[in-house]
């Protein structure tokens, strides 16, 4: 540890968490610099910028960023801020353009970030402006199975090291097919919730039979889905795993069960089953038999703010988060299957999703309680399953004994502390890659 430890917010022995981290502006400001200014952040997907000169407008934390594919097909993540005064040079959500002109004074940038044109270069600036040093600020970019990540940190490790063994699990959804995935979305909305609560909820399977029981019951009644109860969850053989800040929950999957959760109903089941059977040989070749057949990724988060798949919790102050909801579908899936997944997904998730709409009022009260001078005297209690997690012979990461556990949440806040107290990436530990990545799938796809 290079500097004086500043943040001590979780007691690993008791799971008590200081609530101030969910409401204080000063903490939030540190998060923007020390977490969002440093970590690899999910910002987009290659399928959102499929053609040369395509762009997609996104965010790294609060900072607006243009994801571009330049004329040579290379990806760039460019801060959407004219280097002259700071105006945004892009105001659209997406499009296709070789250049971006600032609407204030006309400074114009190429889509690789270079400052290409300044009105009055000779007449007003006497040819003294150093255009080469005034390109759009560019972040480092890497991709994982089509998902685009970016970081502002020059000293950040590779994306492969950052994801580490979490990728062993993530591959089972994101890296299944040779043809890759296609991103649909995003749907965007604001929730009056601190961003961390949305992220830590990704490992909270405990809430599902309470928060979401009405929707689960409707799925049973209308779609023929299995009943959901606390008992099923408590007795589930499924587990949590934690790697490098990434929280994984996974199912010890039945060999022949379809892998999707959204859109399966009595009528569509065969469609999912047929697709599963037809693609299994390919998936086995890509991931090896064990991962292809026995591991099914469940809810998960990618540190710091990736939520359940390729979805984003974008911080908008300590008390507000902009949620970006995407759906990823296998590019090569039959249209009928894509439709079932799309419809099932919108019914469950998103601003209007039956499951997701019931989360918000719970979370926002968690945030509101943290802003209370009285409420914050009493820490959150995340003690569930303390002492019941560790290494596992078959599964990488720190693995919980049970599916219902707060082990991942405790570790998430410890990782948060580590980032907040680090002076540089040299102070942030990375778990070595130890898992056996069987099959032909690579980081790139």
């Amino acid at each position, binding site marked *: 540890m290079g500097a004086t430890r500043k943040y001590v917010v979780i007691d690993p022995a008791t799971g008590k968490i200081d609530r101030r981290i969910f409401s204080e502006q000063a903490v939030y400001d540190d998060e923007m610099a020390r977490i969002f200014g440093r970590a690899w952040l999910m910002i987009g997907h290659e399928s959102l910028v499929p053609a040369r000169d395509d762009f997609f407008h996104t965010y790294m934390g609060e900072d607006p960023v243009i994801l571009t594919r330049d004329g040579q097909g290379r990806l760039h993540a460019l801060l959407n801020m004219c280097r002259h005064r700071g105006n945004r040079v892009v*105001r*659209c*959500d*997406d*499009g296709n353009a070789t250049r971006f002109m600032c609407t204030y004074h006309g400074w114009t940038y190429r889509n690789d970030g270079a400052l290409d044109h300044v009105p009055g270069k000779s007449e007003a600036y006497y040819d003294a402006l150093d255009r080469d040093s005034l390109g759009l600020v560019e972040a480092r970019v890497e991709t994982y199975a089509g998902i685009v990540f970016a970081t502002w940190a020059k000293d950040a490790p590779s994306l492969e090291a950052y994801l580490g063994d979490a990728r062993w699990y993530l591959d089972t959804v994101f890296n299944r097919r040779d043809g890759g995935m296609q991103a*649909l*979305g*995003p*749907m*965007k*909305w*604001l*929730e*009056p919730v601190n961003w961390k609560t949305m992220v830590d909820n990704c490992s909270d399977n405990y809430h599902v039979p309470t*928060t979401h*029981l*009405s*929707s689960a*019951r*409707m*799925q049973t*009644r*209308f*779609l023929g889905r299995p009943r959901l109860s606390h008992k099923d969850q408590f007795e589930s053989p499924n587990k949590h795993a934690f790697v490098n800040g990434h929280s994984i929950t996974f199912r010890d999957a039945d060999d022949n069960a379809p892998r999707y959760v959204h859109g399966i109903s009595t009528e569509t089941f065969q469609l999912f089953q047929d697709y599963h059977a037809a693609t299994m040989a390919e998936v086995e070749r890509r991931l090896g038999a064990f991962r292809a057949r026995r591991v099914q990724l469940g809810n998960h988060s990618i540190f710091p703010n990736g939520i359940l798949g390729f979805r984003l919790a974008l911080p908008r102050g300590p008390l507000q988060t*902009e949620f970006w*909801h*995407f*759906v990823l579908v296998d590019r090569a899936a039959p249209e009928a299957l894509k*439709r079932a997944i*799309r*419809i099932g*997904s*919108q*019914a469950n998730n*998103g*601003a*209007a999703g*039956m499951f*997701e*709409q*019931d989360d*918000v*009022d*719970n979370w*926002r009260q968690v945030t509101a309680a943290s802003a209370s001078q009285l409420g914050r005297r009493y820490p959150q209690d995340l003690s569930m399953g303390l002492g019941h997690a560790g290494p596992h012979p078959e599964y990488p990461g720190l693995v919980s004994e049970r599916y219902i556990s707060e082990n991942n949440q405790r570790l998430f806040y410890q990782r948060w502390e580590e980032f907040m107290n680090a002076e540089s990436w040299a102070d942030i530990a990375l778990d070595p890659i130890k898992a056996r990545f069987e099959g032909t799938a690579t980081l790139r796809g």
Partner: protein
Amino acid sequence: MKKKRARGRSRTRPAARPATRPAGLTPAQALWLELMPFYIREAWLLDERRLTEWLALFTDDVLYFMPRRKNVLRRESHRELTPLGDLAILEEDKRYLEMRVARLDTGMAWAEDPPSRTRHLVGNLEVAPLARGEVQAKTAFLVYRSHLETDHQLLSGCREDVLRRVKGEWKIARRTIVLDANVLLDKNLSVFL
């Protein structure tokens, strides 16, 4: 109105039955007069939380669709609304609509329990006949939602419906809802539009 409700099925009959056209009205004006009460009634059903009756206003093959609305340049306005097949905010068939309504009666649909207080103001009706006796009806809406203690939202947008007569009553066979927001400012979208 409440008393009438107790008298059984006839209560769900909208004022949209083919009526004798008052003298001096064009067919388009008569259609407008027939449909405006339909939309007023729908608004009351929603605001009075009579959602089972509201569901009966839709055909069994309804598509209830709310695309996303993007910021694009004026010259690319054709890309402003996401097409069917892209990720929508809502892309519902009748069964999913029924699930949403039935869910509210479980006592555990927390986004709407306690329920929102809504006011649907629907107007600017334009109607145009389509083939096979169907009608296209466009309306604009302002929907105010108040929830719990101090949460409140104003949803503004338009609806483009395709209406069809089923057994003499107008039903909504397709509804496209276009919100005027890009990033929704609402914590969730748990009320019907």
